């Protein structure tokens, strides 16, 4: 139980995506023009991430290490199509608003990243806990970012007016420049908070913000390892067994 809680809670602060571990920047920037859109995208990611971690973890002993990336992509893509169909059938307006970013969940590094780094090496329960924690963290972050942008850019949060009458909305905040600015400011604020928190508790501040490379380095794994020199790939796979 303690272990499950540990796997679950790390996604909520220590490795909070996308603020601490910069994974999945595209949807983070693109769909957070309102709190509702952020929440919708977050929940879609939770669905895909949890099921993908579950399936990958169940199949982890069967998947040959050399084609594991291909298998992960196949599983993630199937789940994304599932989400696409379900969203079209039951929440069509949200599907229209999120647009192209629904199919693009498949290249959200969070999904493949967790499959490779965690689910392929751990039993089912911790993998699901990990996915739920990361997914929930991602959802909360997106909703928070969306809420802030909606508040500044439109004067509302979840469509409810929040500001006084003379407030002039900064419409730029709900457009592309506002996405970059808001995320940059939030990251800086998080840095400031971590520094302050660590000074008080006399720890070294965690600086996970450059972890963006983990996204890129995952892509560096070939989809199917064809020749023999795959020490890296095999080593990774073998660790979990």
């Amino acid at each position: 139980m303690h272990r499950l809680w540990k796997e679950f809670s790390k996604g909520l602060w220590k490795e909070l995506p996308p603020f601490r571990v910069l994974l999945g920047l595209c949807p983070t920037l693109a769909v957070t023009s309102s709190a509702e859109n952020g929440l919708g995208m977050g929940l879609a990611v939770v669905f895909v991430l949890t099921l993908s971690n579950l399936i990958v973890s169940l199949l982890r002993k069967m998947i040959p290490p050399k084609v594991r990336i291909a298998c992960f992509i196949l599983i993630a893509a199937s789940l994304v199509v599932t989400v696409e169909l379900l969203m079209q059938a039951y929440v069509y307006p949200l599907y229209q608003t999120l647009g192209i970013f629904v199919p693009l969940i498949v290249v959200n590094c969070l999904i493949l990243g967790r499959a490779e780094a965690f689910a392929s090496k751990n039993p089912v329960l911790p993998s699901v806990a990990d996915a739920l924690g990361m997914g929930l963290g991602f959802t909360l972050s997106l909703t928070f970012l969306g809420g802030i942008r909606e508040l500044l850019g439109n004067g509302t949060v979840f469509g409810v007016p929040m500001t006084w009458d003379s407030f002039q909305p900064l419409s730029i905040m709900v457009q592309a420049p506002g996405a970059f600015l808001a995320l940059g400011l939030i990251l800086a604020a998080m840095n400031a908070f971590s520094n302050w928190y660590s000074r008080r508790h006399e720890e070294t501040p965690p600086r996970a913000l450059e972890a963006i490379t983990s996204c890129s380095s995952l892509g560096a794994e070939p989809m199917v390892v064809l020749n023999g020199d795959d020490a890296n790939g095999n080593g990774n796979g073998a660790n979990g067994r």
Partner: protein
Amino acid sequence: MDYFLLVITAVFISNIVLVQYLGACPFMGTSKAVSVALGMGGAVIFVMTLATALTWPIQHWLLLPYRVEYLQTIVFILVIASLVQLVEMFLRKFVPPLYESLGIFLPLITTNCAVLGVAILVQRSEYSFIRGVVFSLASGAGFLLALVIIAAIRERLDTAPVPRVFKGTPVALITAGMMSLAFYAFRGMGG
């Protein structure tokens, strides 16, 4: 004239990174030096164009006739992932000089949402084959442009006295926001 407008729109007016948010991960991850940005941008142009040239026939000759267009996401991502690997193997074997300059960036492209994004955008906009390929080429060029500009700025930022909490990614994101604001000035052009 028509194609000129298409290119201008894809490069400036709706720049793929700064206006459409596609490819934000590599935009932040590989923009620390201009040389790296050039390599990455070149590889993206190359793969993006090839990916559209390959996924267009698949969509129109396989997915649509058999009414399985809902499998688009799966098929496209598998095609792009295999394409990236084939291109890498081909370049390594037959065009070593090009491999030297682009090779290390190719594998990073599978998870680059700009490539899959453009392939899907071409289908959603119902472009013809030629139009789709030109659009992809121009979108790739727009990506290269944005990436090189921000890399040049970040090289200078490294030596600038940035407040400690803004160092690294936060200040890069703010810079990107300013660039995006500048690209917004192109809006309304070409109408």
